[in-house]
């Protein structure tokens, strides 16, 4: 009986931990196997502990090149989609123009459409235009599908913003530019940041659309896919683990900063 009571009291915590485990288990496997020393070309069975792959992360031909390309594309796609998406979001919330309704719903189409359909039609478009497939076509495609996520995130933020705040700024001697930089932008910032983070993650790991429109260019997801046909080098797990760590550190850092800020204030 005491056990049942204990279970009742801690059910929420247990459910939370189980769910967390479910979410994190794949990451744990990736990390563990980054220290493996596989016998053959495939890193699917645990053999023995080794730090070889960590000592030489770029030891696999072409992998670090594709990684750097993916990072570049992700950065530029994030910048492009965030700037355009933020402007679209402001326009949709603040102004009443003729095609507003249409734009408002069309902007969500890339989120709803199956990626493979979008990839194929983009390829058709690029081929008909005679565009050279490669870095630029990938970038254009990525900006396109990231846009809708940025617009959604920023729009929610701008809509909940009190228009009186900007009036107050103008009332307190801030001209249009100052009002935007000092009040509008900082308040919309969390939405913009959320949109930018989503864009980066989506662009970095996109495979389907990139694969259709890359020509002979190879991004990191394409490299992983390609090498999985012939054998999976341990370095892939190293890169995966490193990215996971970077993300975790990023979250921890922002938590520490906001904690310190609230403690200072109190």
């Amino acid at each position, binding site marked *: 009986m005491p056990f049942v009571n204990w279970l009742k009291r801690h059910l929420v915590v247990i459910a939370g931990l189980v769910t967390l485990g479910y979410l994190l288990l794949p990451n744990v496997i990736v990390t563990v196997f980054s220290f493996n020393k596989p016998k053959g070309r495939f890193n699917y069975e645990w053999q023995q502990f080794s730090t070889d792959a960590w000592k030489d992360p770029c030891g696999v031909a072409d992998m670090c090149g594709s990684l750097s390309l993916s990072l570049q594309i992700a950065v530029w796609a994030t910048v492009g989609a965030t700037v355009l998406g933020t402007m679209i979001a402001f326009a949709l919330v603040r102004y009443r123009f003729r095609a507003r309704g249409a734009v408002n719903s069309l902007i969500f189409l890339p989120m709803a459409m199956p990626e493979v359909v979008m990839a194929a039609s983009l390829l058709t478009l690029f081929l008909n235009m005679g565009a050279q497939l490669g870095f630029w076509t990938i970038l254009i495609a990525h900006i396109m599908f990231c846009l809708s996520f940025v617009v959604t995130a920023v729009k929610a933020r701008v809509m909940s913003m009190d228009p*009186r705040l900007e*009036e107050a700024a103008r009332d*307190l001697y801030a001209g249009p530019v100052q009002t935007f930089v000092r009040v509008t932008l900082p308040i919309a910032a969390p939405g913009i940041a959320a949109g930018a983070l989503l864009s980066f993650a989506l662009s970095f790991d996109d495979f389907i659309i990139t694969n259709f429109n890359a020509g002979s260019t190879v991004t990191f997801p394409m490299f992983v896919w390609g090498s999985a046909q012939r054998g999976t080098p341990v370095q892939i797990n190293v890169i995966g683990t490193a990215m996971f760590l970077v993300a975790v550190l990023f979250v921890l850092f922002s938590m520490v900063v906001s904690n310190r800020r609230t403690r200072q204030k109190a």
Partner: protein
Amino acid sequence: MMTTDSSGDVRLSGIGKTYGSFTAVHPLDLTVPQGSFFALLGASGCGKTTTLRMIAGLEEPSSGTVHLGDQDVTHLPPYKRPVNTVFQSYALFPHLDIFENVAFGLRRRGIKSVKKQVDEMLELVQLGEQARKKPHQLSGGQQQRVAVARALINHPKVLLLDEPLGALDLKLRRQMQLELKRIQTEVGITFIHVTHDQEEAMTMADTVAVMNAGRVEQLGSPTDLYENPQTTFVANFLGTSNLIEAEVDSKTGGEIVVRAGGGKLLLPEARCSASTTTGGKVLVGVRPEKISLAHADDAGEISEARNRITGKIVDSSFIGVSTQYVVDSPACPGFEVYAQNIDRDPRLVPGAEVVLHWSPAHTFGLDAAQDIDAGVETVEEEAA
């Protein structure tokens, strides 16, 4: 003789605002003298906030001009006007702490050393301790004071207050009314205060402009408006009035004799804002607290010189300092009487026959061609 500084005068000339076919503010003229505490009073949607926003520059007037002292500011953007606003929602910047909120205006004008001024201003509104908190960490009353400090630190020629106390509870509102009045006396800046709360307008302002449906109905000191209302709207919106439909019987020596409900009432001609002709209609009004209540058995003791009306008590509510009676009479249903609880007559209970009597000097006359219920607060407005 001292020359009065008129650089803080606000002069509105023929200023009006229309949105498409809807007229929010009919062209109006208004002068607010330097250093005064001026209130724009009216129900929601009467155009008072629009008028305020036109002074602030947040709304472009459809017609007319706005002058600050000798300067025509009609077409200046808000950030170029020496005017600051305290918004109804306070509109504190959520991403800045209290110090930076208050320093905002100074910084935008390129003033580098703001610390001393901001600290002083925070002391004035008694928030020195809270300088490094974010707005959401403060209570409503504290946020309100930050909003006032943020505006006042710029030493505007005019401070505009848009329902600044609307979001506070009753007790805090009373406290802030006194606080705002104190600050206004201390800094000597012209305050223009928009409110729908007639009590707030009367306790704080030197001059009140009562607005209704985009027009100024009447302008004057609170006592003047209360004692001598010129329209039914003012009579009903500021406090409570008993209005009786009457017929002019005769006019003699500055007094008008009117007939209402079979009796005769006296009305000083000077207190009648409507033109009257014998046989014509007029609305006769009297405030509930001016009326004395006597049981019908004591009717003989009432002086002949007083106006009197007979009726029957239908309701009485004991408030503490006073008792409020509702009396039905042939002259007017639902007559309201507020009696001080000095000596309570135990016979004055619902159902009792009574005589209401008051001095003719407390009677006022209004044009009968108006809605007799204009400005009567409905339950819905009370809740809002």
